[in-house]
């Protein structure tokens, strides 16, 4: 792939010194820009380890990782933090919002870490994100005062505020009910369609994985399957319809 956003070559992660565990073993793949891919596997298969390596939260024992054309091997802790802020958005199973801050402040936290000042352009971007996520009118609320679905949507908004090329989502709907799960995936699709954001979603839920464009399966630390999903990508019209439903329901809730 000529224009790969993610290029992983022989990624290996070994834990321990005396008794070694190979959590990830020689995993290589590429993710193109604009893809929505799922990483599936059972608990302990190594998918979270892979996500930690791709998210620059951990370093590989062996192998090479290039993100957006930038080699990450040997990067200092400070450089990896800076790359995380610039290139990556995270959506976790738990929303991980900062309870001391409002929804608006949580949303803008990655931009504040990047040292950006809240000017008219950034304000417009944040307001657009709020609208897309169906969070209008909730900016001044404390993050703790939201429902579970709303919190997760704020977390998604936060992941998108720096407009990163890649969003890594680790079981992003693991704590949500069916309605909110559907809403989150429709949101991913909409953002992917509108902003070209690439999504890599770690999940153990086959049904969710089936909604993506591509499925990578990890078993015992090895990449055992990498398949294109013919039914994963719904039409833009379907996405738009789903989003309208989602936003109406969230507006009704709030």
């Amino acid at each position, binding site marked *: 792939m000529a224009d790969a956003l993610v290029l992983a070559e022989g990624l290996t992660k070994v834990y321990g010194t005396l008794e070694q565990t190979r959590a990830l073993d020689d995993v290589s793949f590429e993710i193109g820009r604009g893809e929505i891919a799922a990483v599936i596997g059972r608990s302990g298969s190594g998918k979270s380890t892979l996500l930690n390596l791709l998210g620059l*939260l951990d370093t590989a024992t062996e192998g090479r990782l290039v993100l957006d054309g930038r080699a990450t091997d040997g990067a200092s802790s*400070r450089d990896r*933090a800076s790359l995380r802020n610039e290139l990556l958005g995270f959506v976790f199973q738990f929303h991980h919002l900062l309870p001391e801050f409002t929804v608006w402040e949580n949303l803008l936290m990655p931009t504040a*870490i990047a*040292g950006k000042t809240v000017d008219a352009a950034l304000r417009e971007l944040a307001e657009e994100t709020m609208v897309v996520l169906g969070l209008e009118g909730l900016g001044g609320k404390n993050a703790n005062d939201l429902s579970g679905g709303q919190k997760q949507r704020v977390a998604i908004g936060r992941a998108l505020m720096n407009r990163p090329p890649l969003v890594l989502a680790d079981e992003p709907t693991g704590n949500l009910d069916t309605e909110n799960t559907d809403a989150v995936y429709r949101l991913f699709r909409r953002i992917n369609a509108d902003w070209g954001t690439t999504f890599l979603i770690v999940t153990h839920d086959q049904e969710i994985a089936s909604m993506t464009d591509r499925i990578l399966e990890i078993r015992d630390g090895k990449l055992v399957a990498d398949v294109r999903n013919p039914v994963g990508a719904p039409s833009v019209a379907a996405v738009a319809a789903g989003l309208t439903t989602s936003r109406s329901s969230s507006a009704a809730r709030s």
Partner: protein
Amino acid sequence: MLPLKIAARFLRTSPVQSGLIIAGIAVGIAVQVFVGSLITSLQASLIERTIGSSPHVSLRALKDGDPVTFSSAVARVVRGDSRVTAVVPERDISALFSKGTDKVPLSITGGDLADLNTIYRLRQRTVEGEPSLRPGEIMVGVDFARKYGVKRGDPANLVLGGNDVRTLTVSGIFDLGSAAANERTAFTGPELPRQALGYRPDQYSLVAVQVADPFTSTAVATAWRARLSGIKVTDWQVDNKDLLAALNSQSASSYMIQVFVLVAVALGIASTLAISAVQKTRQIGILKALGMADGSTAAIFLWQASILGVAGTALGVGLGLALIAGFTFGTASSPSAFPIVAQPVFVGISAAVGMLVALLSSIIPTRKTARLDPIEVIQNG
């Protein structure tokens, strides 16, 4: 400035915890300011009471009983020293005060009133009559006057050496603040003692000198000894070793109290900040995952410590000064009370130490934060 904003928010969202730690620092600093000023003022008061009206450096003849010659050369050395605040050439004689059958020994110091006033402050201390030492006049102490029924204007019969009997007039009665001194000391002009002792006009029993800082007296005396041959130069510190030892012991115990207070304050801040770091582990992990550098997350706790330190120290200094004002007001009516004067240098040092302690206390949480792996937080929810 993001770390500062986050630090301020963390503190604001835990008002009770923040308030308690600020109160802890404030109490510690207040104790520092109060105890430090109290001890310093107490020592100043003790020194003033003990040697405030005594020479800090004395010039005498090498041989006891001989007069010291206060020549212009000697005067240049003494008066030319910038540390000197008072120079009093004195002539001291012993006499017997005679009234009826009473014969009471008196130690009479003769000199110019203007000179004597610089050390003995006779003008302020005159409680009856006038501060006056014209020829034929004498001033006596309040306890002496009370004991022997002497009043202003009364004649005072004095028997000097060789049965030389003189009658002087009591011009004023003074209170030196010490019953012993008030009962035995008297002042007169320079001429009567000169005649009684048979001295030349430039000869004195001693030249009493006071210096701005009494604790420099040894250095002053040492410097003068090298320049004044044939004159015995002594300083008060040699004659008051017990007092100095007591003052030093008091200082040492005061420093110990202050050190323990500081240690208690430091432990209080450190433990609270450490608890705060543990409480905020999740938030710090999230911020790191979002791309905040280790240095910036550590700076959050440094800012927290700074905010707590500034707030606690400012409150503590205010509280300390209020305690000093309260103490001074509360003891104003007591005759043995002494004024506590807030020592600006000491207040400054206490404030600086308070800040330093607060910053040092943030070492543990900042190190803990720098080591925190965001994966632990993210995966454990």
